[in-house]
């Protein structure tokens, strides 16, 4: 009887320890991918402009579905029922589009492969120059219709790049397209992050001589100082509920972590030790912060709540564990570690279990950042001899470069646009 009671108490307390922060934890090896074929995307020549021939609409959708990690794309002729059956295709797409200035029109259809019935159909109309956005919307709609999940085809990545000699901040679609320069102050611009609404960014810049954190609007020319209090102000991260920013600031040479309200008021200090505490990142519910600290003598990853209490250590192995990023899907942390003379992207559960190394023998791989649906990770890699931004699945498979031609650093993936 006593033993039974004791066991009940023990299991109860384990439940408390693990908490209830785990959202549906679908790893890419868990969800069964759907076999899909992509049929013809017809350019309605009668209606359309000559220029529309160059819109790679089909390629955009194919790439989106490929990268989403929800599908296995079969190269089968959708008209050949036998081949489709043999390849076990479950659904297929067909679409048509045209341009009648100033608009781009797109008609996307999803068919069930067995019955050959339309199961989803939608029309899109956008200003011609935003045609990519309409096509990405269709890809996201397909993902949502089939899996009930939000796709990331319309998300963006900002990063610091040396493509114009000095490091400026750039923005691009998650697939590397539509690259645009955001800052052009001729100075050093580092560690950018998106605002919660994706309409602003925070970053460290030396544009006024000292390293301060600036806020720049993505849709207007407005730039203003956001934090100038400390000697070194860096690594900002905007909270998922949009009301606070966590960052690291230095006093007397020592870096600590602070939180400030988005309106620039009410700073509170979270770490007080004499070692470097830096690179903070929010949990998906905004209640906790994962960060790097050297308080034990080497760079390790810790977690604390948003008031600096309840500090727990996450990593114990190796001496240089940095740049933690919390999965939007639950209690997993991606980070980089120094192993065999190189930096590698790793993943670990918050309780220290399920350690996995995601990159291997491919240069230095650093600064992982999750897609907002937690299905993909972007990071930098020097495997080609310079620093490129890559994206990969969360099990480390399918590592694909999305930038090239320059040295790109510190990628930050956008949030989902609310209501969009």
């Amino acid at each position: 009887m006593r033993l039974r009671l004791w066991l009940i108490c023990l299991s109860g307390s384990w439940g408390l320890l693990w908490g209830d922060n785990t959202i549906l934890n679908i790893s890419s090896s868990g969800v069964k991918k759907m076999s899909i074929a992509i049929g013809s995307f017809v350019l309605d020549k009668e209606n359309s402009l000559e220029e529309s021939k160059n819109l790679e609409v089909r390629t955009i959708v194919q790439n989106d579905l490929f990268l989403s990690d929800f599908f296995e794309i079969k190269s089968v002729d959708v008209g050949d029922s036998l081949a489709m059956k043999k390849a076990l295709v479950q659904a297929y797409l067909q679409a048509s589009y045209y341009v009648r200035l100033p608009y781009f029109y797109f008609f996307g259809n999803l068919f069930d492969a067995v019955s050959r019935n339309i199961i989803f159909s939608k029309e899109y109309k956008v200003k011609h120059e935003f045609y990519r956005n309409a096509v990405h919307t269709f890809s996201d709609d397909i993902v949502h219709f089939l899996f009930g999940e939000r796709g990331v085809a319309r998300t963006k990545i900002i990063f610091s790049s040396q493509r114009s000699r000095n490091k400026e901040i750039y923005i691009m679609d998650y697939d590397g397209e539509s690259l645009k320069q955001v800052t052009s102050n001729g100075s050093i611009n580092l560690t950018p992050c998106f605002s919660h609404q994706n309409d602003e960014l925070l970053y460290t810049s030396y544009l006024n001589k000292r390293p301060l954190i600036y806020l720049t609007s993505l849709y207007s020319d407005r730039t203003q100082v956001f934090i100038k209090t400390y000697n070194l102000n860096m690594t900002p991260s905007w909270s998922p509920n949009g009301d606070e920013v966590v960052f690291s600031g230095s006093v007397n040479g020592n870096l600590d972590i602070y939180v400030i309200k988005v309106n620039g008021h009410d700073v509170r200090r979270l770490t007080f030790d004499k070692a470097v505490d830096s690179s903070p990142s929010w949990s998906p519910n905004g209640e906790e912060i994962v960060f790097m600290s050297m308080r034990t003598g080497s760079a390790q990853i810790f977690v604390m709540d948003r008031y600096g209490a309840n500090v727990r250590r996450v990593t114990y192995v190796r001496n240089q564990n940095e740049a933690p990023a919390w999965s939007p899907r639950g209690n997993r942390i991606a980070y980089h570690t120094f192993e065999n003379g190189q930096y590698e992207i790793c993943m670990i559960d918050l309780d220290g279990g399920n350690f996995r190394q995601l990159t291997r023998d491919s240069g230095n791989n650093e600064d992982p950042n999750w897609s907002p649906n937690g299905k993909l990770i972007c990071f930098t890699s020097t495997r080609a001899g310079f620093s490129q931004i890559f994206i990969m699945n969360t099990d480390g498979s399918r590592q694909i470069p999305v930038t090239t031609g320059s040295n790109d650093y510190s990628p930050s993936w956008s949030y989902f646009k609310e209501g969009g």
Partner: protein
Amino acid sequence: MSKKSLITAVLFLTSAWLILSPGCASKKKLGEAEVARLRQAYEDSLQRAREADRLALENQAREEKVEETVIEETPVPEKIEAPAVTFNEEQLFRNILFEFDKSDLSWEAREQLNEVAKYLKTLMQVKLTVEGHCDERASIEYNLALGEKRASSVKNYLTTLGIEAFRIETISYGEERPLDPRKNEDAYTKNRRAQFLVQK
């Protein structure tokens, strides 16, 4: 009750009332002079408050103006002129080097900084900026923190020698401004440095 005791009671109560009640007669109406004096006092205090507000606004505007002026400071000249005294500034302010992943000062660095302190005590108007730099190994963020520690190391040593803290500014550039862009040990050694900017 007898008539006598009734009269006594009434008389007692009446006199008690007369003695104890606050005299209506003491409530005089305020004279005009008094009113004028009070009004003047009120106006004066209002005037003082307005004056204080105006001064506060002026001070704030002045501070903001000063701040802006500081940001647009003219850049420090590259060539350091030797003063009339016997300081070899080029030697004195040569870069201080650091070991890999370290921010502590070597003995040579300390000896150099002893001389720097002497210089600063002789030329009281001179201010210093100490820049902390790193080689390109380790991450951007790690190196920003390390550069900050290196610059602080130098500043802290100088302040323990009695140099006022406000005369020394520190700034970390991490790995962002290498002296030598090559990827070899020679370049890395040169890049792990604290660099001085002298303001006279």
